[in-house]
């Protein structure tokens, strides 16, 4: 039952990732609606907290992480000029990972949570997440070991680093609560995970995708390999130091916070390297953005990445933090990376891979266009409402308005956020339908070719 066919593992990981994308985003929209009318679906299993937690965990560890694994399983053999070490293992691990995500989802609905944000699955699920990730890493490391192309393209650096960092980061933040010497210590470890799940997994694999896709889609070589290396090493050096800024103005000694602020500012270096490379590679290829939706997703994702990285270091400053921390702003910012930047690059990776794997264009170009515009406009509406709401709330708290008043005050923005979210989800359903049709068209063309051969 487990196929050995070329690219079958990448395909299975991506297709099942899209299923979680639809589910995870619907949970997000449910959360948004519950913030408007709290009685919506208010049963024990679907109480606000359960839905919010499973939204966060599933979009990150199911949708995005699975789309990432799919990208790596497809891109690494190409870059290494070899085949995947084992398609079968890739398929087995896809099935296992899906089962683990389902377990995680059910346990969160049942109220079993380990509380730590970005690490909410209970420990018994965490152990399985790690085991399957190790299977994936094993498959990929073996593939790299048997490579024909000796020079490692920069995307491989990013993928290699990420596959090492994610399991380690995940373990540090997810140890059983009683193993930490104090709640504050656990918060530091937890935010180490919270920040580096983004910095050393989402960002690094996403940047690897950008570096792979840009030259392919523009037909121009990457502007500078050296610059991308500088980017890689500065991320590796500085990102790990960023966890403490999540406890800004909080119950930790000043030196730890400073250890969080300075590296946050230094992170502008890797961002700059990505952008310089991005613009220099795009030079002379901008006209392609108009017709090529895949390239357009890479461009939009990269721009959102830049925006996220300008916000991030600013928010790490104590003064800015004291205004926006704990407000809707934070939620807006938290969606920039995983959704605006790297879900967009993963959509692009999906379009690119599926076209390569099937050897066909997508079933409908119109639906691709619609997917792009629904996602982009939906996302902009979503984030601008949250940022505005956050700033209004931040100032209202400083003025000493009663908390309930500050909730009522931002209601219109919370409604706008839900409208943006609805558009986003609508876009993803079009994406899923288009993928389905594309594979279906491929199947029937294979069947009819087969018949033609048989009758000839």
């Amino acid at each position, binding site marked *: 039952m487990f196929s050995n066919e070329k690219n079958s593992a990448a395909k299975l990981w991506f297709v099942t990732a899209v299923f979680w994308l639809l589910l995870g985003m619907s949970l997000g929209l449910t959360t948004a609606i519950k913030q408007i009318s709290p009685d919506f679906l208010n049963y024990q299993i679907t109480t606000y907290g359960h839905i919010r937690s499973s939204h966060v965990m599933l979009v990150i560890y199911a949708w995005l992480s699975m789309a990432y694994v799919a990208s790596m399983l497809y891109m690494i053999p190409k870059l290494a000029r070899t085949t995947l070490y084992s398609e079968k293992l890739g398929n087995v691990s896809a099935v296992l990972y899906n089962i683990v995500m389902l377990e995680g989802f059910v346990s969160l609905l049942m109220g079993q949570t380990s509380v730590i*944000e970005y690490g909410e699955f209970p420990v018994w699920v965490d152990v399985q997440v790690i085991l399957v990730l190790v299977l994936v890493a094993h498959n990929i490391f073996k593939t790299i070991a048997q490579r024909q192309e000796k020079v490692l393209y920069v995307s491989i650096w990013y993928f290699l680093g990420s596959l090492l960092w994610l399991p380690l980061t995940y373990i*540090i933040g997810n140890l059983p609560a009683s193993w930490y010497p*104090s709640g504050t210590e656990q918060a530091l470890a937890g935010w180490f995970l919270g920040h580096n799940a983004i910095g050393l997994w989402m960002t690094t694999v996403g940047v690897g995708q950008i570096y792979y896709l840009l030259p392919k889609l523009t037909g121009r070589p990457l502007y500078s390999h050296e610059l991308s290396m500088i980017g890689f090493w500065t991320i590796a050096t500085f990102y790990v130091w960023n966890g403490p800024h999540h406890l800004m103005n909080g119950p930790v000694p000043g030196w730890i916070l400073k250890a969080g602020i300075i590296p946050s500012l230094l992170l502008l270096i890797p961002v700059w390297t990505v952008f310089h490379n991005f613009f220099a590679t795009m030079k002379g290829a901008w006209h392609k953005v108009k017709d090529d939706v895949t390239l357009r997703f890479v461009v939009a994702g990269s721009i959102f990445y830049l925006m996220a990285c300008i916000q991030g270091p600013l928010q790490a400053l104590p003064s800015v933090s004291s205004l926006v921390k704990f407000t809707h702003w934070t939620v807006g910012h938290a969606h920039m990376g995983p959704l605006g930047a790297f879900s967009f690059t993963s959509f692009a990776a999906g379009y690119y891979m599926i076209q390569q794997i099937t050897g066909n264009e997508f079933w409908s170009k119109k639906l691709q266009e619609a997917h792009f515009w629904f996602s982009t406009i939906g996302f902009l509406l979503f984030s601008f409402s949250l940022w505005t709401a956050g700033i209004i709330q931040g100032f209202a708290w400083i003025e000493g308005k009663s908390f309930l008043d500050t909730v009522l005050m931002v209601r219109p923005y919370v409604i706008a956020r839900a409208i943006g979210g609805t558009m986003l989800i609508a876009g993803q359903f079009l994406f899923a339908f288009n993928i389905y049709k594309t594979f279906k068209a491929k199947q029937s063309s294979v069947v009819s070719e087969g018949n033609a051969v048989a009758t000839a």
Partner: protein
Amino acid sequence: MEKKPSLVLLVAFTLFIVGVIGTVILPYFDGEINEPTANAEARNYKVDSAEARGREVYIQNGCQTCHTQFVRSVQADINQNLGPATAGGDYKYDLPHLMGSNRTGPDLMWVGTRWNESWQRQHLIDPQSTSPGSIMPSFAYLSEQEMKDLIAYLMSLKPADAKPK
């Protein structure tokens, strides 16, 4: 290095470990966050006490996704009258910690000083009755035992010196 994946991994691992030591391991040796304060002792609930069970109810029903327990000495928190800023040692026994990251509802670090039991019960059953327009969902589905435990926990969230011993 461009041809040696194992070297890339080794250096990447080393840089990672340096960051872990700096931000997770070194703080362990800082007394300020590991010495229990009087507030921490007041929250060091006995196993299976009503407060300890109530804390579990709080976690299982996801109160921490809307409420922080994290008071800062910044204008916003001072003007919102949230109570004294929390210190690292206050969380000594708070495992898993419930600091939270988002205030969809107000901070609850010292909420035990703000309301009495009957208000808490009424609010948990029908939040809109005590706070018109509130977006907090009703927790009327909790069993009587869970409700009692949860309220005991909420009422225990006070500064140590505000507690009659």
